[in-house]
């Protein structure tokens, strides 16, 4: 069906800079103080009905990206389209209509649920905010339905309990029910299982996959765990210091990564099989602070393949194979015949 190739979310050249508080005098003398460049110009799109995985280490800007797309944080620059409508400049009341269609599932269900509210109150809250449901019995039915959908069954047993009476996995199900009761089309899932134990994790991931199929959802799935990204997504983007440095089909990116940073990530991820010996990690040092982004390619100080151009210019994403690109000069140079294939690193 043609519908399935439609882009539901499109992000164009998105920036988010957080100004850093400086002293009173320096705020008078210079207007442009230092800033944390959490997102530094990213573009991508998510097709209807697909899961786009956004992966990266802590501080790379993946959470800020998720929140900025929902306009929970205002972007500094760039455009966000939802279903071909630009929502970047919409006013609060205009935005509310779209808020119903775009929901978020947060990382920590121990903090995201108000401990003083019952499960019923927590799940009915979104309905009340958006004025859905004619009367109490209709709302109750919607709540029961939502709890059943996330497999908190029988729902009567959960309605009047409090979050502290539930396990971590059950709490995250409540958070999912809260997000889905409004029947959104797009959901940002920000590390939804990183606080859960392994045996519980899989259950929540499978539930999210099943609900995606059942309700025709589109997800932006944010995670630091590449194995989980591989399990969940169709396409992924790898972020490093506020930029997407590689994108493409999840299999291609994980099994045949192009960017030296992605290659290092793949090697560093431990595998639960003692027979597999992993090669050494080719890069040194740690990610710099996003307030002090290196000149040229932001990965150049840690990159074992960096050459002179990398310290001077900022690489843009270059399509290495159809639908799979990396922001690395090596590929551009190779394609224009300036370097030999032997210079291209591979795993």
């Amino acid at each position, binding site marked *: 069906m043609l519908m399935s190739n439609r882009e539901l979310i499109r992000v164009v050249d998105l920036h988010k800079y957080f100004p850093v508080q400086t002293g009173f005098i320096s705020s008078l003398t210079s207007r442009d103080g230092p800033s944390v460049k959490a997102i530094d110009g990213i573009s991508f799109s998510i097709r209807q009905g697909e899961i786009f995985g956004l992966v990266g*280490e*802590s501080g790379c800007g993946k959470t800020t990206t998720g929140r900025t797309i929902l306009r929970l944080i205002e972007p500094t620059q760039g455009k966000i389209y939802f279903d071909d409508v630009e929502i970047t400049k919409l006013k609060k009341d205009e935005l509310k209509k779209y808020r119903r269609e775009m929901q978020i599932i947060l990382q920590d269900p121990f903090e995201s649920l108000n401990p003083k509210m019952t499960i019923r109150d927590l799940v009915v809250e979104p309905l009340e905010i958006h004025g859905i449901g004619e009367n109490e019995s209709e709302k109750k039915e919607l709540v029961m339905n939502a709890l059943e959908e996330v497999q908190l069954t029988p729902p009567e047993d959960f309605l009047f309990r409090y979050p502290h009476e539930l*396990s*971590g*996995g059950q709490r995250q199900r409540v958070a999912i029910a809260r997000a889905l009761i409004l029947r959104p089309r797009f959901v940002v899932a920000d590390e939804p299982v990183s606080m859960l*134990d*392994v*045996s*519980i*994790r*899989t*259950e929540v*991931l*499978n539930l999210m996959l099943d609900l995606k199929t059942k309700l025709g959802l589109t997800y932006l799935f944010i995670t*630091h*765990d*590449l*194995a*989980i990204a*591989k*399990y969940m997504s169709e396409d992924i983007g790898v972020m490093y210091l506020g930029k997407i440095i590689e994108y493409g089909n999840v*299999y291609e990116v*994980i099994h045949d990564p192009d960017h030296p940073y992605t290659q*290092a*990530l*793949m*090697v*560093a*991820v*431990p*595998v*639960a*099989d*003692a*027979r*597999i010996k*992993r090669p*050494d*990690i080719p*890069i*040194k040092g*740690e*990610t710099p602070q996003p307030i002090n982004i290196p000149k040229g390619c932001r990965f150049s100080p840690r990159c074992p393949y960096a050459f002179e151009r990398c310290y001077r210019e900022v690489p843009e994403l270059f399509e290495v194979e159809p639908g799979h690109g990396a922001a690395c000069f090596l590929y551009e140079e190779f394609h224009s015949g300036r370097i030999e294939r032997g210079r291209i690193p591979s795993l």
Partner: protein
Amino acid sequence: MKRMPPLLEVKDLIMYYETMKGDVKAVDDVRFTLEKGEALGLAGESGCGKTSVALAMLKILPYNAKIFSGEILLSGVNILTLSDEEIRKKVRWKRISMVPQAAMNALNPVFRVSEQITEAIILHEQVSENEAKKRTLELLERVGIDPSRADHYPHEFSGGMKQRAMIAMALACNPEIIIADEPTTALDVIVQGQVLKVIKTLQRELGLSMILISHDLSVVAQTCDRSIIMYAGKIAEDASTEELFAEPLHPYSIGLIGAFPSLIGERKRLESIRGSPPNLLDPPPGCRFHPRCPYAREICSVEVPPLLETHKRHYVSCHMVNKHPKYS
């Protein structure tokens, strides 16, 4: 000739936490051995008792922890019977030392990193300050920290460097055994890889014995020679890492390993383990895993399964092992 005792042997250890609501049965009949030069992984989900076992080995238990029975034999000497004074002088730091969980918060922010390591050496060994300082610099270099950074304060270190400094400190008095409790949990994946490499190299080069505690099976799989999987205060399975991950025998190990998404190979739907771990105030009778176990039979809810050796140095505590078609 009498066989040499293993370097460390934990025998039938039972340790509960006393609370207002009753006893939390955190460690219940745990036994294992650690040989010289061996890297042993202790894996399991949060609350399974893995950290409690480690704390008992150093006798740094919280006030409400009570050891009811068992022995912890270090070269044949039961350290549970030693006085606090003896433990402090002879065991901690010198024979067993620990890299604690959340090591990034374990350094004192108002002292230079080198001062903190030097202090540990001077307190435990009869050496001059100069010798201790020299040793500190050597240790830092060993873990990959440039000696020029030694006099910096912890806030000037990155997360990975703080973790390396904590490893250096654990090595300060040349211990035989290092207990690393979730040493890389708060670190990013590349830094985690670097730190694990440091740990592994040191362990090999210095012939150390190590107990690595982690909730992340893949960290254990890639670092340890032998692995123990704990569930609800008990050992489910104890085997060589290669055997355990290739052919797990306990239904919990099978479930846990099967629930782990892998970076390698094709994507297939993962099976989760139904339910959640029990509350250890009132664990299920019989096998503690039976309410979640797909192979459970009547006996499993009645009798506690013993930890049996199925073949050489492969221990499993499951009634159904060797009985269920899955295992034959």
